């Protein structure tokens, strides 16, 4: 289940953030999205990810302090979505 969601998320993130020259398969689900070794995302990208979760999954991030943990990697986002959907 989480593997399917990770696959879907990788494509959605590339589309939403308009990442050029990267295929979904090239996004390591466990690699950090921000900083060195990641996708090099910036603060506007974080806001786009918040919109993505709201628009595609109906999940609203209300506490900004949760952000770094939720948006650490594609896998952590997938885990958060699954966790929220259980509630």
């Amino acid at each position, binding site marked *: 289940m989480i593997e399917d969601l990770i696959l879907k998320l990788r494509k959605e993130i590339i589309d939403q*953030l308009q*990442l*050029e*020259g990267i295929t979904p398969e090239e996004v390591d689900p466990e690699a950090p999205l921000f900083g060195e070794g990641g996708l090099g995302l910036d603060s*506007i990208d974080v*806001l*786009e990810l918040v*919109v993505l979760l709201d628009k595609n999954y109906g999940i609203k991030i209300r506490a900004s302090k949760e952000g770094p943990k939720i948006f650490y990697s594609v896998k952590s986002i997938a885990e958060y979505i699954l966790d929220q959907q259980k509630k």
Partner: protein
Amino acid sequence: MALLITRHMKLQDRRIWVNGIVEYVSEPGSADKLFRSVYHHYDIDYPKFFKMDNLCKLAFLSTEILLRGTDILQKYPAEEVAIILENASSSLEYDQKHVESIRDRNKYFPSPSVFVYTIPNIMVAEIAIQHKVKGENAVFILEQFDPGFIYDYVSELFRNQQVSCCLSGWVECYGDQYQSFLLIIEQEDKIKGFKGLHKYVIFDTANMLELFKGKSI
């Protein structure tokens, strides 16, 4: 203190001119396709380019081409390089895109990366970030290219000794209509090895208009 146009470029109708000479002609296509082709032709490596709106892409590419092979960013302190631009459509394309994203209260998902481009000054910010320029900057919205306005404003900056160099001109983009015309303006006495006007053009309203129209001086 004489001011000179030391380099100029124009991007219009799929063509790029540098100092009046055609440097590149793209295949027919949309503005977006053209900007991608220019990006690859000049072998630019700046992934954030692909996230910009078309106005910023045009301003960014035009500046890259204008500055290519020059040493002005090494020659002048970052605080003394100004960027003064004009255009007619402001950021209208992305303003409309943003309005569309908030029109329906049931599908209310404004995009931060669209919203950030709903101000024309962002094109100056993109240039300043890329080249670490910290001098005066401004974007003026005018009905058409107004060299007289640029002349008055930029001359005043030099007169007040606020700048040593200025990037200035016209960057207009709406839909598939685009046009850019950029100049580097410097003081004669700061041009190393200056040996007369054969390489440069006196910075005045009439000359800017002639260069904008594609006439040689």
